[in-house]
């Protein structure tokens, strides 16, 4: 009985002991802006300053870190009153177009100048995007929500303010793959983050 209790406690203590390592974990809270490209730009061609992201990760060594990122951005465009022809049907009205993008990704970072005040890096992520697309015209709504596979390359830098706080500037290009009910999307993120080191 004592062994049955002792073994999981031992495993948990080993896991918790990693948390006591100085500054090998990080979290980033970020304000995220987006700029549509490709097919997304055909639907909405306006950039957006509405978005945020959260990332949590662990350093493998001084140059490498892995993490998990989740974020949200909304694309929005309101069109003027216009007429749309679809075969024998013609509709006139104002359109309000939305795309909400929710990436959930695994990330990997390579730091070029660890220990420096300015530490540039390159990174990549792979995972899933939840893309919620909506068009309002009049009192009617068309919705197309789907999960997509996607990935992003990224380049940025950390500007270390103190030993455990840094500013993070990032440029990230997101590619969201096509699914049967939805086209592919692509967009650029420019991100300003607040990084906390543990």
């Amino acid at each position: 009985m004592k062994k049955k209790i002792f073994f999981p406690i031992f495993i948990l203590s080993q896991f918790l002991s990693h948390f006591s390592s100085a500054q090998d974990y990080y979290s980033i809270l970020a304000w995220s802006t987006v700029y549509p490209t490709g097919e997304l730009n055909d639907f909405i061609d306006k950039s957006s300053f509405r978005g945020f992201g959260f990332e949590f990760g662990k350093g493998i060594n001084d140059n490498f870190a892995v993490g998990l990122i989740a974020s949200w951005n909304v694309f929005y465009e309101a069109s003027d009153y216009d007429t749309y022809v679809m075969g024998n049907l013609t509709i006139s009205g104002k359109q309000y177009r939305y795309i909400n993008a929710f990436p959930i990704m695994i990330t990997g970072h390579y730091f070029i100048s660890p220990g420096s005040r300015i530490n540039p890096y390159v990174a990549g992520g792979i995972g899933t995007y939840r893309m919620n697309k909506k068009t309002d015209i009049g009192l009617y709504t068309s919705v197309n929500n789907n999960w997509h596979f996607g990935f992003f390359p990224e380049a940025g830098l950390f500007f270390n303010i103190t030993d455990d706080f840094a500013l993070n500037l990032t440029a990230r290009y997101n590619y969201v793959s096509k699914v049967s009910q939805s086209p592919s999307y692509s967009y650029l993120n420019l991100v300003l983050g607040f990084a906390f080191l543990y």
Partner: protein
Amino acid sequence: MNIQKILLRWWVLPAFVIAIYGCYPGGGEEIEDFDIVATIKKEGYSFSPKSYFMPDTVPKNVPEDQQETSDPVNDEYQRLILQEVERNLQTLGYTRIFPDDSGDFPGGEPDLVIVNSAIEITNTGFIPGYWLGGWYPGYPHYWGNYPWYPWGGFTYNYKSGTILIDMGDPDQEAPEDRQMVIVWQSGINGLLGGDEGDIARRISTYIDQAFKQSPYLSGT
């Protein structure tokens, strides 16, 4: 890892989320932002200026159990709808003919029949106190009742209206369950709100739009 430090920092996350989410775009804000005009024509039908008969009333389409209790369409709006439809058809070269007292058409039967009608719908719903993600925009001006729910939230109701203009051809062979083939239909839909002057202006504007986006009616 200092757990206390983590907890002190991570409170920023919900504050951040609330701040950014508060900027969520809201879509239409004015009543007219929700007005649409839809027209549809019968595939392959050949339009040309013809004679037509049009009843001089605009009935309201309501379920049978509401026919006795529902108010009719405002007389002024009926007059306006009929006037605007007739004016637009006249511009396209169509000729309105009238039956005599016995219901016959002395100069011959009309080639077409134009029927105008209206629909009024009261839409109700409930938005809970917890935020579901902003997919319920658009009708904030018409929040109705504000009952108390322990977890927050409120009900809303708003009225929407539709003016239908149906052009039927009695010479077309109709299916067994239909009286006449509709060769062109227009639906003008929007919120019922604003003063009578605004509603009258919108009726006139959108009937014009229905004919403007249907240039094939002239036969050219």
